[in-house]
């Protein structure tokens, strides 16, 4: 049984891939058919779990891709993995387009993961180990606080194998 659901949308040589589920030993990548793509765009928001055996298979999958890899809606879990394992994307230099940042709303007493575009200004903050802004809560409109240790969470921004591009990569229709 596949623990990872992979939805592929191939158009004009660009592969848009939505992942949902677990990157673990049961995950199967052999039906993704992305070898001919010059660009692949991964939506990683739906990844719920990752374990060490899964990382090994994931890296083999990434390394086998020919085209350049773009990451959008990168979940907090993936960012944490990237911080723990600098080689999480194998030998590829990946381009991150947007990622989720963990915040906390004191008045709602709740975690909030907010999507941040990797534009130039945000990337400058992240590379200096700082949070790219403090948005307001979507429920109470109060100020959100970063929930974590900024220097640790944004450590990946200095990696040589991670590039940034906040411009939207439109789906070809």
């Amino acid at each position, binding site marked *: 049984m596949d623990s990872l659901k992979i939805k592929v949308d191939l158009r004009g040589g660009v592969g848009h891939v939505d992942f949902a589920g677990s990157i*673990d*030993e*049961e995950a199967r990548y052999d039906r993704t058919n992305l070898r001919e793509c010059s660009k692949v765009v991964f939506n990683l928001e739906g990844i*719920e*779990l*990752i*374990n*060490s*055996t899964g*990382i*090994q298979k994931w*890296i*083999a999958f990434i390394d086998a891709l020919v085209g350049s890899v773009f990451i959008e809606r990168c979940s*907090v*879990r993936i960012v944490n993995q990237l*911080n*723990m*394992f*600098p*080689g999480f994307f194998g030998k590829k230099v990946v381009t991150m387009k947007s990622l989720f940042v*963990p915040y*906390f709303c004191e008045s709602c*007493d709740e*975690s909030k*993961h907010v999507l941040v575009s990797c534009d130039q200004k945000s990337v400058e903050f992240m590379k200096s*180990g700082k949070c790219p802004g403090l948005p307001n809560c979507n429920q109470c409109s109060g100020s959100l606080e*970063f*929930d*974590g*240790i900024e*220097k*640790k969470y*944004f*450590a990946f921004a*200095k*990696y*040589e194998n991670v590039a940034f591009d906040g411009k939207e990569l439109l789906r070809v229709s």
Partner: protein
Amino acid sequence: MINLSSIPKDQEQDLGSSYLLLEVHDSGGLARELEILRKDPLSHFKILALCETARDDIFSILSDFPEVHGILSPTNTLVERRIKRILGWERNADEAGEKTLWEIGIRQKRQGNDLKPMIQESLSKAVLYEGYAEDMITVLAELLSNAFFNAPFDQDTRTFPFKRSPRDVNVTLGDQKQVKVWLTEGPQFYSLTVHDPFGSLERRVLLENLERAAKRQHDQLRKEGPGSGVGLYTIFELATEISVTIHTGVSTLFECSFYKASRKRNYMEMGKNLVIERHEGG
């Protein structure tokens, strides 16, 4: 007093979350040398202290330095007390304020999948940061992978029958042996404990794997072979307190505690503690 086993400075892009490994042999001069390290260019490392002996005077000094994220030692009295209670199956709920939420024995690796919803259900009413249950489930997966693939040892053939098996194989333990898993809740922690009936792990191998993974260099992840060699490091990163007790040839007990926190920041500020003990024979 301290031998530095540091990460080369050319790895600077990784400094934000790298470890500096310190071998601590004595308490004499320890505080002064840690103060010097604070001012050193290396001070942006998290410190992982490897203590030759378990002594309260050393722990006391190390605990004064928030830069010390982990203490690896032969024993730690507080943790030891908890381990002994578990090993002796003497869980005194009144004494520790702990209660067992569930306890289960499994013989097949894939039965571990049934435990994921049990964890989610057990934590569903608690106010915890987003991703807390998933972190615990990840730790469970690492512990079960270890218990079903690395630990089983065949006394007759003196071999590890499943060590080289692909990790998606549904290993079944023989001889009516089983892996026990239980989840307990205390006032400040949830604890996930996994017990295997083999006692085959080597303390040295565990520490070598942890050290290699914590350095986060090019050899961090094994690309060949069935395991990636970063299971213990993953556990170390996700749990607050880990104690491993190996009774050679008898059993291995992994107890992983997770500090209850509604904010990830509060959780991370609790720091880390890892204790690995090995006892010869049963």
